[in-house]
């Protein structure tokens, strides 16, 4: 039984590594987080007891390990790296002096159709990788890990206002990136 549980868990490892790597942007750190999660899962097999979907249960454990890794990552980041992201909003040139669009954003054609396409998801991932590190970290905590703003602020030791600025910046950058690299085609 225990061996069976172990092999079931192992079969989910590739999924878990990819899940962690999307957030952590570093293969080795992602592997470590997954390893910690799997060890915790094996130690806590009794708590699983078929209560829920195994993948859901493991992902829940992994989220905690990812947040631990984020905490370590953000401690290790020197302050100078952060300052370049703290200045101007980075998209001032999209607006004129009165805050109106220099160039009005066009509608995207049939965006729903893109969702099922592997190439679109690859383009989205490339746009995510192009975000500055701290901006990406906050955006992924919000949209990938599904954390709410107060949780994110608590983990990163930032104010809600700063959090909203980073999320806004991420969305503006992603929308521009997808407009240029996907929807313009």
């Amino acid at each position, binding site marked *: 039984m225990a061996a069976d549980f172990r092999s079931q868990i192992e079969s*989910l490892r*590739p*999924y878990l590594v*990819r*899940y962690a790597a*999307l957030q952590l942007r570093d293969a080795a750190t992602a592997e470590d987080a997954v390893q910690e999660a799997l060890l915790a899962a094996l130690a806590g097999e009794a708590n699983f007891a078929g209560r829920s979907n195994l*993948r859901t249960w493991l992902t829940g454990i992994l989220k905690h390990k990812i947040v631990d890794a984020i905490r370590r990552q953000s401690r290790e980041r020197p302050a100078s790296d952060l300052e370049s992201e703290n200045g101007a909003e980075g998209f001032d040139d*999209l*607006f004129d002096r*009165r*805050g*109106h*669009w220099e160039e*009005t*954003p*066009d*509608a*995207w054609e049939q*965006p*729903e159709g*893109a*969702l*099922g396409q*592997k190439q*679109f*998801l690859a383009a*989205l*991932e490339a746009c995510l990788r192009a975000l500055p590190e701290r901006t990406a970290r906050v955006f992924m905590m*919000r*949209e*990938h890990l599904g954390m*709410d*703003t107060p949780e994110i602020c608590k983990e990163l030791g930032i104010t*809600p206002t700063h*959090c*909203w600025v980073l*999320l*806004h910046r991420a*969305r*503006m950058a*992603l*929308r521009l990136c*997808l407009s240029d690299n996907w929807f313009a085609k």
Partner: protein
Amino acid sequence: MILSCKETTRLLSQGEDRGLAFGERVALRVHLAICKGCRNMSAQFKFLRLAMKNLARDVDQERSN
């Protein structure tokens, strides 16, 4: 409250992360009623959230394949 497009994008983004105050929602609605660019933007922010959910689901499919 009269919003510029820049302020509108800021509020649209915050609307994805916190409950907006009544006054903010009214100001947004007024602006969106007259501004096509910001309406497009609003749809694109919502699409982004959906796309991020699909990214996680795509992770799923690769596992079972």
